[in-house]
């Protein structure tokens, strides 16, 4: 009990736990009535995939769909034993990781150049770069195939890596980041004696965490889930990536849906884990960079 002569409390009462969570309001909003059913609707395919992955083929073909009577863990084992799933996983991981790393390095360097270096034709070059963003991939599919073929990379993992080493989207995104960054830090470092590359490596790279994380996630997702380009560039089963390999579960007359869904579920696990791990950085960076 407070002393009758005690001064008025200077400390604000703690916020009610029911009302806030780390500063965010948790009160129900009318939007929730719309958003919750929409979220459930969007989760439906995922739930259906999980349910099918643990069903028997007969249960999978039932309509209306129902929960399996017993969980068929064997579907997951069958995927590994009945197909070169491990090889596809390694192929996809190699391609994705190499492409992500090269994009982080090359896109940030090119973005820095477009944002900070004044050179003749930089505006024109940047416009040309932006224009490539507006051309659908299907339009450049054949020219890309011819170029890759001339490199002798057809049916080789290099065919999936080389065309994606640097992307126009990545350069654009990193340029936007550098433009938003006040130049004072770089100027201070240059006066302090750092070279251009020194400024980039010692001052800018440590500040590039959020945009690099976003670029990494976006690039990883697009490469991991890419189907069309691997379909054109790869023929041998041992060089296939995950998405291409999944298509082999689909036959002309018969599809083993539980196996296909079990493989799909396993192929999506790394992506889901990556997104959950990086979603806070991802959302913040997308919001701050003005890129959607």
């Amino acid at each position: 009990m407070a002393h009758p002569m005690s001064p008025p409390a200077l400390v604000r009462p703690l916020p009610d736990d029911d009302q806030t969570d780390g500063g965010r309001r948790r009160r129900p909003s009318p939007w929730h009535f719309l958003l919750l059913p929409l979220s459930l609707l969007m989760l439906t395919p995922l739930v259906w995939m999980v349910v099918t992955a643990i069903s028997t083929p007969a249960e999978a073909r039932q309509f209306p769909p129902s929960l399996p009577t017993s969980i068929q863990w064997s579907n997951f084992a069958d995927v590994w034993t009945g197909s070169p799933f491990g090889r596809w996983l390694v192929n996809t991981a190699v391609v994705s990781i190499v492409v992500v790393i090269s994009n982080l390095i090359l896109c940030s360097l090119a973005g820095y150049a477009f944002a900070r270096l004044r050179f003749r034709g930089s505006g024109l070059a940047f416009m040309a770069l932006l224009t490539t963003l507006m051309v659908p991939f299907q339009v450049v599919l054949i020219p890309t195939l011819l170029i890759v073929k001339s490199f002798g990379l057809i049916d080789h993992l290099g065919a999936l890596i080389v065309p994606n080493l640097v992307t126009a989207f990545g350069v654009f995104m990193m340029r936007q980041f550098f433009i938003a960054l006040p130049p004072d830090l770089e100027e201070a470092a240059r006066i302090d004696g750092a070279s251009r590359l020194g400024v980039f490596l010692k001052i800018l790279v440590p500040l590039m965490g959020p945009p690099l994380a976003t670029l990494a996630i976006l690039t990883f997702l697009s490469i991991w889930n890419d189907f069309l380009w691997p379909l054109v560039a790869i023929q041998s089963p041992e060089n296939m990536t995950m998405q291409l390999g999944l298509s082999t579960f689909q036959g002309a007359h018969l599809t083993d849906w539980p196996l296909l869904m079990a493989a799909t579920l396993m192929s999506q696990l790394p992506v889901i884990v990556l997104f959950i791990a990086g979603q806070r950085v991802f959302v913040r960076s997308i919001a701050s960079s003005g890129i959607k």
Partner: protein
Amino acid sequence: MAPIVLEGLRKVYPGKQPVVALEGLDLTIDDGELVAFVGPSGCGKSTVLRCVAGLEKLSAGRVIIGGREVQELPPGRRDLAMVFQSYALYPHLSVYNNLAFPLKERSVPRSERDLEVRRIAEMLELTPLLRRRPGQLSGGQRQRVAMGRALVREPMAFLLDEPLSNLDAKLRTQMRAEIAEIHRRLAITSIYVTHDQVEAMTLGQRIVVMRDGRLQQQGSPAEVYENPVNLFVAGFLGTPSMNLLTGRVSQGELTAGPLRLIVPGAPDGDMILGVRPEGLIPATGHDDGLCLEVVVSHVEALGNENLVHVRVSGSDEAAKALVLRSPPRFSPRSGEHVLVQVDPSQLLLFDLRTEERVPITGPVIASGDRHTVA
């Protein structure tokens, strides 16, 4: 430490409509001198600093620091240090590493580097903060770290770009005194850019007034304040700014509103009469012919003095607002008619057309018996 010579500096930003940011600037800054550049936004004062630092490429001219031409050298090889308005502290580095950065870039051995950083930290009372990041510091502490980073390697010259403008009034006064003390102790040649004339007047051993990329006047603070070369300098320096009355000189007699004055040496023509607020004094009864009757608009009581805003009555043209600085005991009511005396020694004359100062070669006296207006 070294003198800085600026010769014919010209900077044009190209474009469809090229912008001339600097035009023909010539200036010599002596060894150990602190020169304050002052002027309104866009006058080119920061461009001078950036050109000296090497952050902008000059369109023409030479920058000579310590006898060495540096305009073609990159910023890092000019041996300068700069304090930015935003402080530009490296956010991912601790205070210690921020201070050590310039030394690391110059490959100073670790032990020597450590000694230097600790010496500067001691001097600027930053020792307890060495492990903190810039984000964990107050505005004043950040400012001090920025100063420390500039001082740590003892540069030939020191460039300060509005270093106090992000601080509150109290802290600004304190830091101003600290900068003055550091400069007095180290005597490093310094260029200080500010739009705050109080900073310029109190810190600068010499001040340079800029306008539209051109140097308007340079000199000691007192000299520039008391003897402005043109109307711009007269109006820019001083708070409140100089009182201005339009008038006309004919055969050595100036008529400006109700005032009729003999102005020896002034040519005939339209003129502007300028008098600082401290040049208008509440009259003590005796009128020597240099008095004005004015109507009080309002009084700003600042504690140590009052700023009395008045209007000259009796003349359509010169129904002008004037300000006089008075002791706190002089505090008339709004609407009150009071008599103020013009200090003839503080009268300045400017040509209305050219805005240049017109010299007065002798003492100013009243041309009639009595010039007060009822």
